[in-house]
């Protein structure tokens, strides 16, 4: 279809697609317009444009949902987990991709098993372990959790990419006298940039939005991430849609803005990453 000229049929398709997109955006229209109305305006005409728009909901939601501290918690947990995932994942994958031994293959299969296992199976034993270690309600507990739970997928992506790289780069460096560590960090790792981007994007979106485990580990601790804070906030103000929606807009805004700026890379990461 792509090679056709822009003719009547393509114009018709364009119109249909735009109508579909407008319908698709209806929930977003409701989200934004309601966040700009006071309760009286919402009761009177829920679906009209806000006249006049009020911005009071945003300030109230920001403090009621404790969004400042939550954004900081989410940012810390996501960033440190990503650094740990990239460091541990790429090192492990370098061994798994290059080792031509049974041990290497066995370990690779062991890591792949983690992609299939639903985390719910280990949920309670892990909860017990994290409690015993005193890591409930801490950033460290969440960071270790995300590193462990996302390593299989990270290792899978890195291993596939490294296998497709020629061995000569590292071999040349080692012939020149570099050790394995130097050969990897100075020569191989910089070559992994495309897949590191994919690893970064997919893991960042997952960790930033994850809900179940932070609800268990961080609920009521004062170290809640954004989804957990928003969940508690909505539960408290459920009937005040203007306030609730202002909270949702503010809670979703950081990741949506990052997506809009990096949309090309994000979409590419999501569409290519899973092919390995």
């Amino acid at each position: 279809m792509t090679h056709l000229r822009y003719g009547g049929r393509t114009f018709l398709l364009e119109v249909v697609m735009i109508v579909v997109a407008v319908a698709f955006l209806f929930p977003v229209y409701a989200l934004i317009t309601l966040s700009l109305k006071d309760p009286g305006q919402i009761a009177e005409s829920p679906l009209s444009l806000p006249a006049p728009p009020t911005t009071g909901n945003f300030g109230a939601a920001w403090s009621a949902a404790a969004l400042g501290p939550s954004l900081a918690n989410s940012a810390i947990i996501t960033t440190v987990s990503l650094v740990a995932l990239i460091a541990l994942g790429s090192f492990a994958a370098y061994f798994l991709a290059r080792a031509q031994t049974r041990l290497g293959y066995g370990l690779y299969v062991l890591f792949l098993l983690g992609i299939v296992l639903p985390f719910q199976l280990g949920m309670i034993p892990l909860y017990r372990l994290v409690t015993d270690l005193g890591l409930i309600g801490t950033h460290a507990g969440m960071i270790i959790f995300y590193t462990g739970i996302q390593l299989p997928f990270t290792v899978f992506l890195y291993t596939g990419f490294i296998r497709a790289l020629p061995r000569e780069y590292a071999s040349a460096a080692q012939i020149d006298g570099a050790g394995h560590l130097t050969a990897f960090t100075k020569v191989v790792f910089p070559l992994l940039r495309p897949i590191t981007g994919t690893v970064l994007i997919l893991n960042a979106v997952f960790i930033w939005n994850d809900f179940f485990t932070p609800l268990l580990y961080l609920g009521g601790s004062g170290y809640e991430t954004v989804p957990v804070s928003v969940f508690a906030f909505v539960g408290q103000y459920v009937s005040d849609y203007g306030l609730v929606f202002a909270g949702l807009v503010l809670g979703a805004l950081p990741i949506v803005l990052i997506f809009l700026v990096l949309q090309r890379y994000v979409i590419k990461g999501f569409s290519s990453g899973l092919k390995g």
Partner: protein
Amino acid sequence: MSVSTQPSTRRRKRRSGALSPPWLFAAPALLVYAAVVLYPSIAGVVYAFTDWSGIGDMSFVGLANFQAMLGDEQALGSIVNTLLITVAIVVVQNGVGLLLALGVHARIKSQTLLRVIFFAPVVVSPVMVAFLWKYVYNPAPGAGLNGLLAVVGLPSQDWLGDPSLALWSIVGMVVWQNAGYSMVIFLAGLEGVPAELHEASMIDGASTVQRFRFVTWPLLAPALTINLMLSTIGGLKLFDQVFAATGGGPGYATETLSTVLYKQAFVFGKFGYSTAVALVLALFVAAVSFIQLYYLRSREVAQ
């Protein structure tokens, strides 16, 4: 690299075993993976056969948890719901995703903007999407979706409160959020279909439908496999949207395996029973994964 060095590098390459990195490179990752995934999962399988309540000792009860599940209306209902939700999500999300992909793959002027719009919900937290849709599904006549239905003269629905409708309403919000994900994977597949094949089939007089059926569709198989796997596993594990929108209600109408195992553990303190439900979920996911893997393998052989 100069010509004279080539023979020596070749010789080195042949004994590349000596140049393989040491296994210590994998040790830190293995340690964290073992602590967070392997040990808890193995312990989970053991817990599923105990009566542990979160405190005190645990004793082995054999298959008692699984027998109890057979008499537990909530657990059995959640298995049926989970399977219904999964089938509905797989069919609708991939159907919509494919149509969107075909639409924005055509040479329309708004294609970049439309891709961004359809994909955007994928990056937002499912909990927040569920709260947004809780308003869209507001039972009040003038609000949300009912407000739109009123414009075209259709009656209001209690989307999340009507037990016969609630499950499908959940499917609707999940599809709205994830159709863009299926779309971009199908798009990657469509971009891999060579233009020459389309041109050749056009010269041979193939219609648009024939071109899709005989040229595009077979080459979309890898994208379809990935999409089927992702949406199936996502459907089986569904928790956030249900927990935020209905909490499993009304009654047990939207209860899934994940919401039941959550409640059994953290509301009722039945940790052994909860883990048995988790094991059932794991078996479903494993079965689907192995079928997909088998299918992938057999297709690789065929190629």
